[in-house]
């Protein structure tokens, strides 16, 4: 299933899937997501029982374990509202990965229904709400990483639409933009050599473009590349798109 089969947006109330990474490490990204959505007049509901989308076990091949988590997620996000998630990867898990591992399960239709309601944040703002302008200002040269799990979706274009709409933002291209950063979930720990070599290559390309900030719609990629850069002793400023959008509203300069 692709996210082109989504339910149209009705009403302005959404459920926020904050992602396990934001729950554990990137609280400011989740907070920025809330503030950005509320700025757009959207009421944000946070289902307290949420944990993780189930992707780690799905990618690791342990589909029984993953389905257990997905079933929990389906129960937690019951209802009719759109589910908005500040991650292309978790979004793709909901509308594609989970459906794949539930193909032969009796409750596949529940999973499909959640998938049809799930939106990556930038996609939701631009294509769900129809918002293509942004108020405020953010003075920075930005390199934008299109995370791989947004391939085949409208998330990448949506994020670039929003970035281009912010006064003061200059988006720079960098080499081999379509290549993976090497995170890949469990891949990053079971293939540490290849994973970090891929990340180093990506960092070389990004640094050559001399951005002030490196922005993405997925904190997983940023955790990998930011962590790699810091370990090298050459840290790079990484931000989620939601943080840039929120800071622009406050007309903050790039940190």
């Amino acid at each position, binding site marked *: 299933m692709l996210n082109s089969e989504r339910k149209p947006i009705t009403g302005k109330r959404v459920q926020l899937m904050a992602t396990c990474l934001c729950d554990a490490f990137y609280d400011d990204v989740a907070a920025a997501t809330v503030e950005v959505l509320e700025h757009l007049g959207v009421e944000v509901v946070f289902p307290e029982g949420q944990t993780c989308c189930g992707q780690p076990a799905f990618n*690791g091949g342990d589909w029984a374990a993953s389905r257990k988590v997905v079933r929990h997620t389906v129960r937690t996000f019951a209802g009719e509202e759109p589910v908005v998630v500040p991650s292309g990867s978790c979004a793709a898990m909901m509308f594609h990965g989970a459906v794949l591992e539930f193909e032969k399960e009796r409750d596949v239709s529940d999973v499909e229904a959640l998938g049809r309601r799930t939106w990556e944040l930038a996609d939701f703002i631009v294509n769900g709400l129809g918002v293509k302008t942004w108020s405020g200002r953010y003075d920075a040269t930005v390199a934008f990483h299109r995370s*791989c799990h947004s391939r085949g979706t409208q998330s990448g274009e949506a994020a670039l639409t929003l970035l281009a709409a912010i006064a003061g933002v200059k988006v720079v291209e960098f080499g081999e933009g379509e290549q993976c950063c090497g995170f*890949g979930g469990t*891949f990053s720990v079971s293939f540490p050599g290849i994973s970090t070599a891929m990340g180093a*290559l990506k960092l070389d390309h990004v640094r050559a473009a001399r951005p002030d900030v490196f922005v993405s719609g997925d904190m997983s990629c940023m955790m990998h590349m*930011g962590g790699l850069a810091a370990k090298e002793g050459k840290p790079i400023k990484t931000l989620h798109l939601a943080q840039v959008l929120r800071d622009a509203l406050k007309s903050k300069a790039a940190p």
Partner: protein
Amino acid sequence: MRFQPIDQFAKNLPPATRASVYQSTKTTHEKRTKLLFDQFAEPDRLREIAGEIKQHAIENLDTYLPQVEAKLKANGAHVHWASTAESACATVLQIMRARGATKMVKAKTMVSEEIELAHYLEKHGMEALETDLGEFIIQIDHDHPSHIVRPIIHKNRREIAQSFEREGLGSYNDDPATITQRARHFLRHKYLAADVGLTGANFVSAESGRIVLVTNEGNSRFCLAATKCHIALIGIEKIVPRDRDLALLLNLLGRSGTAQDLTVYTEFIGGPKLPAQPDGPEEMHVIFVDNGRTEVLASDCREILRCIRCGACLNVCPVYRQASGHAYRSVYPGPVGAVLSPLLAGEKFPQLADLPKASSLCGACHEVCPVNIPIPDLLLRLRARAKDENVPSPGTPPMGAWALLASQPTAWRAALAGGKLIDYLPTKLIPVPALQAWAAKRELPAWRGGEFRKWLKNRPR
């Protein structure tokens, strides 16, 4: 700590090899993309249609295989069916013996690599000479191809010049034109002396029985110029329903594989020489090889049989670029190989069950595939199969405890609070291999477990 075999292999790969694999795959990939998007309004739609054609073909082999057999026979060819590698090899040997033949010239065919035909024939006293330049170099070096389309992508010209010198093909000279001239001179005599020419097929039309062969060196034509017997070794998935399907598939194959509008030579072979024709092989044998394909067709990964062996997925794959082809320990490397090789391994699936793990699941392979194979989905299915069959997977963190935690909100919230420990403990003291593998090369961000939930609850509204 033990990591995945392909990661280990990549670690030991000479940097020069990695650099040349990277440069060459990157260049081809970029040219491929430019060509397709410059020349076609909707190349991705073409890939989808091509995928539908091939999917239809493989799902209706029970119709098309008898049809193509009848056509080939009507065209004057002999048709053989080989269910295993052994029977395919034995059929070739039998054909050669029946003709009293001892010398074969071979065009490049991946299925002959798969069934290890050249070794088999040599073991039975036959000469089987590779005539594709890359395959020829592989053969004299007793090496293995590391790429579907460019078998010697892992070698540089200095190594090749040394091999030529060792084989008595002239004193050391690493000029590519000289290397090519010397190979050409050597091979010309072999073409004239050979009894049998062996080719594969890129496509076979069920409608006409025409076999389509594409090459850039013209060696497959030379293989059939002087020999009296043509053997075509063909995987059963190479069938396309109609001649007109070739228009689309050939347009995509050249562009996807080598960034060419069309390969230099595209041959359509309708059968053996007709009485009115002045030359060409008088006898033609077509051997259709199954060798595990029927099982693949019966599996939930059957889409991989659409593959037209263009190599675009290898070229774009960041893991292939780091590890090169031999890392995959099989005839078919890269993303397509990571799916196909474990499937074709049959009972030996566990030995190659690590291949589907060698992917960050970035999806670039799916995005470039000319027949739109959802390779990441198939990699995931094979990972699930490996888990179901309890194949050990070094370096992969166990997921049972995590799943338990992630399906119980109270436990989850407790873990979010307790995770703060990782900020204080040295990573080396935390007995979680995944964490250590992460932290060896990457800083961990500060633990902020539960902070967002607190903010949400306490913020002024």
